[in-house]
């Protein structure tokens, strides 16, 4: 059970984020929602990286008596998460700058009022 807690947290974060995107009207809050989803997915990747009894893949600081390389954990999920965080920052910055410009043009942050493009 205790090992499932991260997965429950992942699902909870994704759903909280989706709730914010779908039901919140403020654009900034929608952006926050997307960030929460992203954090949830990153947490999922990190959780996958945990292997019981494995050691960190650092050659110079291996504990005594470790089987090399079978006990070392592949650092792929960490690499994926770092990449994903970097991408997430770029998307976040772009979204916030768009929100700023939208506020300048429309004078509001309510998503229901920002719909000149419809039908």
């Amino acid at each position, binding site marked *: 059970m205790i090992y499932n807690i991260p997965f429950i947290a992942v699902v909870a974060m994704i759903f909280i984020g989706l709730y914010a995107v779908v039901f919140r009207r403020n654009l900034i809050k929608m952006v926050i929602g997307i960030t929460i989803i992203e954090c949830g997915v990153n947490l999922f990747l990190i959780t996958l990286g945990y292997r019981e009894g494995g050691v960190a893949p650092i050659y110079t600081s291996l504990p005594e008596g470790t089987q090399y390389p079978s006990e070392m954990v592949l650092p792929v999920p960490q690499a994926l998460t770092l990449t994903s965080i970097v991408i997430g920052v770029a998307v976040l910055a772009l979204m916030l700058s768009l929100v700023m410009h939208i506020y300048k043009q429309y004078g509001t942050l309510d998503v229901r009022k920002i719909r*000149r493009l419809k039908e």
Partner: protein
Amino acid sequence: MLSLESLLETLKTGNGFWNPVVWVVATAIIFLLIYILRGFGKKDYKKETGQTQAFLSGNPEYEKELMHVKSSNVYWGFTETLKSVYDVLKKMHNGNASDYVLWFLIIMAVVFIFMGLI
């Protein structure tokens, strides 16, 4: 690499076939025939009289600038008939970014249900 025969090959579609070159030649011949037939038509109509004017059920003809039908009026009858459909479609395309995401989630849920996962 490309030979002349391969240019003229016919595209097989399982049951049918399609060869555009033959089609183009056939169309050209038909247009030629139409042009020749047109040559047999009457040429002795009187210009600048009622014979060359458009007939609008007896109504007077307006200036050309006023006669241009705007694009949104071209298929008026069609959209009027399908008004109920278009009302639904317009309501669907309401331009709200949250609803875009909602549609995405709905479709995802529907596909999950069909796949027997929920």
